[in-house]
């Protein structure tokens, strides 16, 4: 990581700590914001968060590793999560996933070559009355067909 990038990241975290406070209970709010912006939480960010909240970096890592939505390694720029829980499964999740895999030449659990997408399964998204359901970053899509799912992903920048 370049020095300018590091400085920018430090500044970003300082702003978040200023906003949310340096109490330990702010940790997940800060991590959420970093994750949202960078799609992962780089090592250097972990160190800086630990320093500013006055906790050990291992603590920060341990928290990140617990939560499905937080990760330390960079994945694709857009996170695609298809619900794998039973109702969506019965409604055709498999056909959906197969179509996505074919179209983007990449398996679930992996990122596309151009790093545009990372494909994952998710557990019940709370949209079981309108399955099969899929989330792309913070947005959700319902009542999908394989064709519709691919179309939606094609429109993502």
């Amino acid at each position, binding site marked *: 990581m370049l020095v300018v990038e590091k400085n920018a990241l430090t500044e970003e975290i300082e702003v978040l700590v200023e906003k949310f406070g340096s109490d330990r*209970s702010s940790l997940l*709010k800060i991590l959420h914001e970093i994750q949202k912006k960078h799609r992962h939480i780089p090592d250097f960010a972990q160190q800086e968060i630990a320093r500013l909240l006055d906790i050990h970096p291992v603590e920060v890592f341990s928290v990140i590793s*617990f939560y499905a939505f937080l990760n330390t390694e960079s994945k694709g720029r857009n996170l695609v999560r298809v619900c794998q829980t039973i109702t969506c499964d019965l409604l055709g999740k498999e056909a959906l996933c197969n179509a996505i895999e074919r179209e983007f030449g990449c398996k679930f659990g992996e990122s596309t070559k151009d790093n545009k997408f990372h494909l994952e399964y998710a557990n019940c998204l709370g*949209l079981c009355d309108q399955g099969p359901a899929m989330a792309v970053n913070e947005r959700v899509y319902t009542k999908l067909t394989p064709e519709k799912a691919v179309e939606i992903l094609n429109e993502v920048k």
Partner: protein
Amino acid sequence: MNTEIKKTERQGAVLFTEYERGIAIKKAVSMNREDILYEIKMSKLKGRGGAGFPASTKWMLTAAAVSDKKYIVCNADEGEPGTFKDRVLLAEYPELVFDGMVIAGYVIGAKEGIVYLRGEYEYMLASLEDYLQAMRDENLLGKNIGGREGFDYDIEIRLGNGAYICGEETALIESLEGHRGEARNRPPFPVTTGFKGKPTVVNNVETLACVTKIVQNGGEWFRAHGTDKSTGSKLFSVSGDCKKPGVYELPWGTKISELLKIVGAENTKAVQVGGASGHCLSKDQFDRTLAYEDAGTGGSIMVFNESRDMLKVLKNFMEFFVEESCGQCTPCRIGNTKLLEGVEMIERNDFTFSYINKLKELGRTMQVASKCGLGQSSPNSFISILENFKDEILNKGNGGSNGK
């Protein structure tokens, strides 16, 4: 194609009724807190998050606790497979939920309320924040709420980060405090030692919505609905093989067969009541009633018709638990893996009856020996599906492929 239920089509006797934001808050702040507690006690309201703990007892304990700070937490983690009623309440009836949180703060003497919103619902965040701002503008949040001198209270929304276990109240509190969402030993209970060690009420979204209606119309009115032990109505999240999936408000005590008719379910083979951690019922049990005293539930109802492979259903549930166990205690961490392996053995037609019986025994041990509700309830599906669908799964060979 399934069509979505619109708000204007929703019908119910308790929650899906006319209400305008602030009515119950204004009424509450003109009453004294003991009288509100009395109404809630009269209503016999029980928690809607699954465990069914009496709301008034929880509130009285927290109200009685002496502390400089107290907290109200609205549990909107809604991670149980097949549950989405809290999503509908927050999206379409936020006035019921937030008014209930304000009333809770008034009664127990809290100044801060926190909504723990599951990360998957982040798309609702902006509109909920706007809603809270509108409440501030109308003096329904902030200082001297509703003109009541000295009643200051505000609500903050916190997002979860994709962990089912964080719906468990002590894990939720750990998460709010910035830790891994690992369940705590209880006691102490959150009512005395909750968020940041302070007395905390954790209530489900729907429980808080009920409070608003109880304050508006009285405990007696609420109690007139439902059964003697399960008062009021319940929101059911219905999904699976039926014509009209969605959220339904029905009185407690409704028969499963009645519900199936309402949602347009045909050729139903099985009904999973209470989500992955609930129980799976077969046809001969469809005359059972949905109530705390019979088939109790947080509201998830999944319908499976004759064409479904129940072993596949069970496998899906067990994979969920293996993934979502927090791994802190052995019965749950190892137990769920063993149960899933058992399902895979049946799938391969490579099992013995004596081993399956041993696994059911293991399940019963998990129900008592696990540290929190996840491990205590995850064997429910395993045991009920293998018992109620024994012929299909174990006596047909190859896991009941239904001739496919």
